[in-house]
Every structure is written in structure tokens, then in C-alpha cells.
């Protein structure tokens, strides 16, 4: 994010939008079942926290995001390492990977639903599929760009592939893996909420859908705001963590991608 010296100015636009929203409802006295003024949205928050559903559904979505990201990370890092170490394997696998990677994750939703039924498993499988690719590709590219002299050092020390991976390559690839983690947490949240909205009856996405279907717009908008705050907060948290972890290394790859 280049050249943002905004400070407090950034808060003006959201504040004005909130006030305008509130004023519009007060002036026109609009009572409908599609939208709600900000004050009602605050009430929606209080309501959903009060009856315990907000905390419970947030935890459900978090569990899926975490489980799916771990699944994707394990698969992506392991396969990425294998492809990085054995170039021949990479050459045989790259077309297959390039064919599988663009499959939109939601296209797997009916399949996953058919195999696992409703619940955590089907959602974690889809999130795992979606997050595996960034991990795989960033791991592979990190390994293939490791200083060749380091690998020679490993040879001189007589390291096996496992030791080389653990002692040399992973530390060298760590900044990029952290970038992958940040991107993937964002992707995981999007995929989880999408799965919940389309079919899986749990978590924040389902709660959003229920609030809409039961004509409680204040509650629906409260959940929408919550989902946005979570997405935004997770990204900033991981950005902060990233720059803190690699503060001694200087240049960090904070490229906006995904």
C-alpha cells in the first residue's frame, strides 16, 4: 500500500456513510424487510451476541478456515517441496497442476457435498483444495530460488533431502510461506463463507442466509459487517505478524495478489 498518509481522514468516509444511512431512515421513515439503519444494525449485533449464535457461528467458520488452511498447507508444502527438489518430477507434473489449479473451488461444492454430506468435512475439503495451490506454488518458487551455493554447502555436509529441507530451504522460504499463509487465510474465509451461503448449514454464511430468509435485515447486515471486519482484521493481523517476524530481513514481499 503505497503512499497512504491518511491517518484520521480514512475514517471520515465510513462515518459519513453511516450518518447518511441513519438520516435517510429517520427522514423517510422507511421500514422495510430489506434494509436497516445503522442503529438497527447495532441492535442486530447485540441481539446475535446476546443469544449466543454470533459467537458460535463465528467459531464454526474459524474452525473450518483453520482446518482447511492446515490441510491445504500440508498438501501444498509437501508437494511443493517434492517438485522443488526433483526437477524431473516437476517437469512431468506441471501440466497436470496447471490443469487442476484453475478449477473454481465452488465447482467442487456439489461433489464434496455428495461425498461428505453436510458438516465440517465437506467444507474443509473445499477450503483445502482452494488453499493448496498458493502454498504449492509459493513453496516451489521459494525452493527453486534458493541460493545454489547453499545447496552445495548442504552437499558438502552430506545432508539428505530431508535435512536440507529442514535446515536450509524452509528458513530461506519462510517469508514466502508467510505470504502464502496470509493470502490463503483470506481465500479460506471467502471459500468457507461461500460454501455456507450456498449449502452448508453452519457458520457465518448460513447465519447470513437465515437472517435474510427470516426477513431480519438488521441481523443480516450485522453479520455482513462482521464478516467484513473478520476478513479485514485477519489480513491486517497477518501483515503485522509478517513484518514483525521478518523485521531483520528488510524487504518483505507484500505484493497484493490472489
Amino acid at each position, binding site marked *: 500500500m503505497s503512499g497512504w498518509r491518511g491517518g484520521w481522514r480514512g475514517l471520515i468516509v465510513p462515518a459519513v456513510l453511516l450518518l447518511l444511512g441513519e438520516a435517510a431512515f429517520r427522514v423517510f421513515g422507511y421500514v422495510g424487510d430489506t434494509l436497516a439503519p445503522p442503529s438497527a444494525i447495532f441492535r442486530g449485533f447485540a441481539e446475535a451476541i446476546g443469544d449466543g449464535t454470533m459467537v458460535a457461528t463465528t467459531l464454526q467458520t474459524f474452525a473450518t478456515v483453520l482446518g482447511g488452511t492446515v490441510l491445504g498447507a500440508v498438501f501444498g508444502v509437501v508437494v511443493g517441496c517434492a517438485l522443488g527438489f526433483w526437477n524431473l518430477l516437476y517437469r512431468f507434473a506441471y501440466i497436470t497442476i496447471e490443469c487442476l489449479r484453475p478449477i473454481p*473451488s465452488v465447482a*467442487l*461444492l456439489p461433489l464434496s457435498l455428495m461425498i461428505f454430506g453436510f458438516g465440517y468435512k465437506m467444507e474443509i475439503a473445499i477450503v483445502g483444495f482452494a488453499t493448496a495451490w498458493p502454498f504449492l506454488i509459493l513453496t516451489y518458487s521459494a525452493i527453486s530460488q534458493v541460493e545454489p551455493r547453499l545447496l552445495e554447502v548442504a552437499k558438502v555436509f552430506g545432508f539428505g533431502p530431508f535435512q536440507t529441507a529442514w535446515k536450509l530451504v524452509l528458513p530461506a522460504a519462510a517469508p514466502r510461506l508467510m505470504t502464502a499463509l496470509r493470502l490463503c487465510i483470506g481465500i479460506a474465509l471467502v471459500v468457507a463463507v*461461500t460454501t455456507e451461503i450456498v449449502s452448508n448449514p453452519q457458520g457465518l454464511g448460513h447465519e447470513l442466509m437465515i437472517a435474510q430468509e427470516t426477513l431480519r435485515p438488521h441481523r443480516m447486515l450485522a453479520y*455482513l459487517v462482521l464478516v467484513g471486519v473478520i476478513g479485514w482484521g485477519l489480513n491486517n493481523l497477518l501483515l503485522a505478524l509478517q513484518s514483525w517476524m521478518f523485521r531483520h530481513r528488510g524487504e518483505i514481499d507484500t505484493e497484493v495478489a490472489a
Partner: protein
Amino acid sequence: MKRGFTFPGLAFLQGLVGLAVFVGVWHLIAVSGAVPRAFLPSPEATWNAFVRGVTVGDMREQLLGTVLRMINGWLLASLVGIALGAAIGISQTLRNYLRPTLAFARALPASAVVPVAIALVGLTPGMVLGVIVFGSIWPTLLATVQGFAMVDPRLVEVSRALHLSRFGFIWKIGLPNAVPDIITGMRLSLTVALILAIVGEMLAGQEGLGKAILLAARMFRAPDLYAGIVLLGLVGLVSSYGLLLVERRVARWRR
């Protein structure tokens, strides 16, 4: 992340062999019965379902429906995104005021606005298009802002010396400078547009591949389901690879 196919003969052949091995393993697992046939049909069954769908079934119409929905939403999002992005990008003041709001909107999972859109508009094609536009606008918009904000200060001075109007600056200096960023953003936007097109079809029952695979899964017609997934994968592959080619051409032309 900017890797794609390269075509140095041997490596490409090896890649194809790898793909053949993948399909072969898929075949072996399917015929061995290790995985129930209802969950994993053989590659042949999938191919037959695909051929049947394209020749006598309505797979062509469904494909067209999904692709048109995706492209319409994406083009609209690109136009609005580039225009807004240019307006925000050339002004440091606007950027200061809007950046946190934009960062928030970008972090919001686009499918989360689907319930709101349903409440506002109902289950209509317009709702689906609106959601696609809203969801896929952010990568292009933010990339455009970035591209315009990163114009070399010397070029800004040049434009002042030439007394270029604001519009002239956008058209003659800002836009050419931002094109690579914009295309990268548009490539990401297209991926989002495809996903939202599928989600929209599944939720609003619009005719397309998204709805087709959902129905195939409900009726346990695994070969049709797999054919649909493969086709959607192809749509994703062709669209992102096409834009990657454009991106590379632009990068070369700039040097």
C-alpha cells in the same frame, strides 16, 4: 505466481506424459472399485457424459450461459473499476480519504453480499450480474489506483510543463503507465467473476453449468457432475491463460 506454460518441446512432452499418467491412475482407481463409482466415475464415463452433454444435452447452452454471465459481469466491473480507479489514483487527497474504505470492501467476501442482494432485488439475473460486478471490481479497481499512484514524478512534472489537462494526463500518461497493473488486476477479477457466476447460478437457479452440476450431484449422476467440473476447469484455464498471454505481451511491449 506469474508462471504458465512454456513450450520447449521435451518439457512439454514430459508434461503431457505426466497428464496421461494422471488420467491413467484415475482410471485404475475408478475401475478397481476402491472408491465407490457414485463418487468417482472413470475418465471414459466422464468423457462419454461430456460428449453426450455437448451433442444431445444442453451442456453447450449451459456453458454459454456461464461464460456470458462471467464475461458481462467482468467487463462491466473492469470499466467501472478502471474509471473509478483512475479518478482515485490521480488524487492523493481522494486516496487518503478512501483507502481504508476500499481495503475493507476488498476484504469482504463477495459472496457475503448475495443475501443482501437477494433481499434487495430478488432471485433475478440482474441480481447475479450485480453481485458479479460488485465482487470482481476490487482487484481491477485497486490495481488501477496503484498504477496511477505510481506514475514517475518526473512524468508528472513533464505533464505540468506541457500544461496537460487532468483528462489529458489520465489519457496520455496515467493510463499507459497503469496498463500492466490493470491487466494483472483484470486477470484476478476474471477468476472472481467465474466463481460468482457459478455461485449465482447455484443460488438463483439461473441456467448454467453451476446449476447443472448441482442438479447432477443431487441425482447422483457422477459422470455428468465430473464433466461439468472439468468444463468449468477449462473455462478457468482458458480465461486466465489468455489474460496471462496479454499480460506478457504488454510487459514485452513496454520494454
